[in-house]
């Protein structure tokens, strides 16, 4: 088990490599943006055989198919990890450090061991192990207990006596940057990245007619998965079955093998349903899962550990903060000629805080120096489009300020500073189309002059994301009764993967989606990648397509003699297998499958290039009303134009966009991990003071999924959550006439900014 306190490589978490300056513009020919897991480029394989291509017409792909597991979810029948109750199951509870930085001097489990119902205990941070005996954040794991009821486990956990030597902690980023914080991290609390430079920054500023010098920042938020992290572990001899709330069943299997020093073949991981991950559940060796397995082994009984809400906020990841001092220059005709950025952010104890900057609008002359600041909080983990919402906010706000300096319309200014359309960078035309549809021509100049306290405004921002994937494998079986089973070792986070699996197969066979039974979320199925970086759809769809075409080819071989035609002349459509040019030579799907016999027809498929692609484009417009007497922002309308290649499952793809927008609205207005600046304690580790939008906060949302079906499948989970926050912030700016340069846009901050402007 790697010590979680080891400094992480740039990007943090070991899962989402985000170099400080990825030029992730997705411009023609450039490298795709950074992605968590999988990346956009698969192994160098020859492109898939044309017979596997996504040839229209489609009967299921691109249509509104109701989520197959909807009925299970609305009735409560769907069993999440949290719902797994095994015979004789115990409940585990983790004892965590209350201090942001402390040395563990002694751990006394004796009272806990004698407590009613306690069956097993373990010490996670052994005081004698000098490599591991420090708690580096509030919530760091120290020890654990398992008891026969959850209440008794909680009681027993309180009886564990931990003696701490409280150590100085780094709490405030500003103090760390100023060298005024205690020296905690090695070699330093601040890690200076390499300065990256393109073009000639001095020459760029010389060309500029106007310059800007401002500082922008975003805050730390947590994932707040409604189902907390957790596991149920059950041993049968040396074999472990683990139900885990994870975004990657296969990585988790490997994580158990490494963390427990057992063969991977002894481990089975199951995730039939999971209540949200957003990037925080990619960790293959999450401490609570390993602890759960060890307690179960010791107690010789199944153990369930589901974290409580406070633990979830403290210890299971967060979106790092981001800040940048930007100096930028623009010519009188609106060309940005130079951007000089000093950026920093914190991903917690030893974790990086990378984000792309500038985001998408790349001037010819630019320089960036980035610092990761380490503080004593839980480490960051990838969170829905890691780095992009932060880079987007900073870049879009200074771009808007530059547009105002040259008195240009913000949409035209953006188009002027973007490259022309290309298939993976469609921003200029989407901006034009969106502006027209949104009524951008009714936008007033910065500052609503309408009398009264309610001011309205509009804003716009753009996004990109990779969304490619290459780690998909699938197994398809057709039985003589006409049923189709697709097995794929992927998992459904709530994105609709289970439904997508069935759609791809049903479309290939020309049969109703309901006739396909998808089997996923289990390591007994063909291993596929983790669901991170929007890679799932693009990773598994080609595999399922290939396996299905292979199975169909085998079926055609069986059917062709009966129809007296060549197998190659047969096609599957509308529930029939028929000769391409002679519909009279046909057989119903049911009759065709009767030719199969007792042994089902089986075929396999693995991802191949040519059926999926990488890099999406999107733009979003937002309209807000701001009450300048209370500072309250109400988002009234959002319009999203988003492409994701070939839309496989239209209903769930749209839901992803809705969800991304709401997530970004939360980032803009509500969420904030608030630390006590002296003690380092999170003061809102709950859901009443850690604010999230409710039904009354939701604007009217219009979604346009832009057709790029010729590009193949691309994921859409991440991109829509990138630009909403910036669009909202700019709409607020347009409404109130002053720029709030940091998130979240709380009422207090808006009133304060307005008051500062009045004084000025």
């Amino acid at each position, binding site marked *: 088990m790697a010590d979680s306190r080891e400094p992480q490589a740039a990007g943090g978490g070991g899962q989402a490599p985000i170099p400080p300056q990825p030029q992730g513009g997705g411009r023609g020919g450039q490298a795709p943006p950074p992605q968590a897991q999988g990346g956009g480029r698969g192994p160098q394989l020859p492109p898939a055989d044309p017979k596997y291509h996504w040839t229209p017409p489609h009967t299921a792909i691109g249509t509104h198919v109701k989520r197959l597991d909807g009925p299970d979810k609305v009735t409560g029948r769907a069993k999440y990890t949290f719902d797994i109750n095994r015979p004789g199951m115990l409940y585990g509870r983790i004892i965590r450090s209350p201090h942001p930085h402390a040395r563990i001097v002694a751990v006394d489990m004796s009272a806990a061991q004698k407590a009613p119902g306690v069956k097993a205990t373990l010490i996670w941070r052994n005081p004698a192990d000098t490599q591991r005996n420090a708690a580096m954040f509030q919530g760091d794991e120290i020890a654990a207990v398992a008891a026969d009821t959850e209440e008794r486990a909680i009681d027993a956990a309180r009886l564990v006596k931990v003696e701490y030597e409280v150590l100085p902690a780094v709490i405030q980023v500003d103090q760390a940057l100023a060298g005024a914080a205690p020296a905690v991290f090695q070699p330093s609390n601040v890690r200076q990245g390499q300065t990256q430079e393109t073009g000639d920054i001095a020459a760029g500023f010389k060309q500029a007619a106007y310059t800007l010098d401002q500082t922008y920042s975003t805050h730390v938020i947590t994932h707040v998965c*409604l189902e907390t992290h957790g596991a149920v572990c059950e041993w049968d001899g040396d074999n472990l079955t683990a139900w885990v709330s994870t975004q990657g069943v296969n990585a988790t299997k490997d994580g158990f093998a490494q963390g427990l020093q057992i063969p991977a073949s002894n481990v089975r991981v199951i995730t039939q349903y999971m209540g949200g991950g957003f990037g925080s559940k990619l960790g293959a060796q999450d401490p609570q899962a390993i602890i759960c397995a060890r307690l179960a082994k010791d107690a010789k009984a199944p153990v369930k550990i589901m974290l409580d*809400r406070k633990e979830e906020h403290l210890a299971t990841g967060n979106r790092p903060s981001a800040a940048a001092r930007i100096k930028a220059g623009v010519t009188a005709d609106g060309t940005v000629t130079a951007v000089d950025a000093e950026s920093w952010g914190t991903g917690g104890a030893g974790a990086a805080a990378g984000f792309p900057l500038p985001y998408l609008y790349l001037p010819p002359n630019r320089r960036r120096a980035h610092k990761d600041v380490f503080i004593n909080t839980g480490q960051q983990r990838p969170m829905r489009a890691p780095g992009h919402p932060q880079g987007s906010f900073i870049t879009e706000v200074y771009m808007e300020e530059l547009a105002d300096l040259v008195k240009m319309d913000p949409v035209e200014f953006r188009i002027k500073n973007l490259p022309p359309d290309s298939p993976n960078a469609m921003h200029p035309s989407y901006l034009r189309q969106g502006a027209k549809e949104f009524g951008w021509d009714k936008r007033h100049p910065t500052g609503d002059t309408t009398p009264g306290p309610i001011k309205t405004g509009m804003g716009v921002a753009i996004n990109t994301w990779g969304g490619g994937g290459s780690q998909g494998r699938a197994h398809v079986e057709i039985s003589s009764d006409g049923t189709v089973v697709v097995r794929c070792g992927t998992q459904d986070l709530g994105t609709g993967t289970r439904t997508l699996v069935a759609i791809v197969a049903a479309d290939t066979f020309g049969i109703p989606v309901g006739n396909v039974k998808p089997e996923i979320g289990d390591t007994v199925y063909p291993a596929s990648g983790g669901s991170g970086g929007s890679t799932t759809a693009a990773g598994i769809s080609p595999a399922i397509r290939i396996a299905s075409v292979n199975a169909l080819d085998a079926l055609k071989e069986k059917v062709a003699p009966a129809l007296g035609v060549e197998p190659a002349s047969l096609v599957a459509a509308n529930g029939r297998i028929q000769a391409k040019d002679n519909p009279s030579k046909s057989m119903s799907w049911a009759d065709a499958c009767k030719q199969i016999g007792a042994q089902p027809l089986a075929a396999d498929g693995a991802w191949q290039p040519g059926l999926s692609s990488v890099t999406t484009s999107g733009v979003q417009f937002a309209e807000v009303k701001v009450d300048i007497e209370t500072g309250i922002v109400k988002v009234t309308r959002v319009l999203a134009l988003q492409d994701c290649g070939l839309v496989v499952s239209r209903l769930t793809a749209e839901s992803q966009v*809705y969800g991304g927008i*709401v997530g970004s609205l939360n980032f803009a207005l509500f969420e904030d991990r608030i630390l006590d600046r002296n003690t380092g304690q999170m003061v809102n580790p709950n859901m009443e003071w850690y604010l999230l939008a409710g039904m009354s906060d939701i604007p009217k949302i219009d979604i346009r999924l832009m057709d790029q079906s010729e590009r193949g499948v691309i994921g859409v989970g991440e991109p829509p959550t990138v630009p909403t926050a910036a669009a909202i912030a700019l709409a607020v700016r347009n409404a109130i006439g002053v720029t709030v340069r940091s998130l979240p846009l709380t009422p207090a901050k808006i009133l304060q900014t307005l008051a500062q402007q009045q004084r000025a």
Partner: protein
Amino acid sequence: MASKDDKPGGFAFTRRDFLKSAGVVSAVTAASAPPEAEAQTAGVNAVGPGEVPVRLTVNGKRVDLMIEPRVTLLDALRMRADMTGNKRVCDRGTCGACTMIVDGRAVYSCSTLAIEVQGKQIRNVDGLATAAGLHPVQQAFCDKDALMCGFCTPGFVMASVALLEKHPSPTPEQIRKGLDGNICRCGTFSRIFEAVSSVKGVTRG
């Protein structure tokens, strides 16, 4: 009982009141002691701390449990009766994933003690669908894709049922207000709103 519409429920020691009043016990006793609490201090009707028999009526069926008095309605059903439909998310009466209907009113079951709802009619999501099929609210959620991960869904479904039984033809404002006690992290609100707006035929409860 932690009622979601904040009207006096007439119930005794709720977990939420306890959270509110922790540390100011004497003040609570003096100012607003419910009758049962007074009885307790007088040494009458005290229960626990060990397990006590609790009889619940859930979805019209009797559920007999031996549980500690501190066990919430949610945990009693989830961990002792394997009714895992409703979820525990915030565990503090904020997010609504645990929403059940007790005597016709939506309550946060994570903040309602099981012993407090003996003799009441409790409905949770596990019993909402019948042999005839899904409840109209459940069907509407499926039709409109008003769910993603589905973890908030049981609570939203129960809150919607309670709303529609009170207002069979709700105004948009009543829907928003009626569901403001529930949080969806995946962000499916627009489609939940659409789903609830589309439901017809729920009769006043």
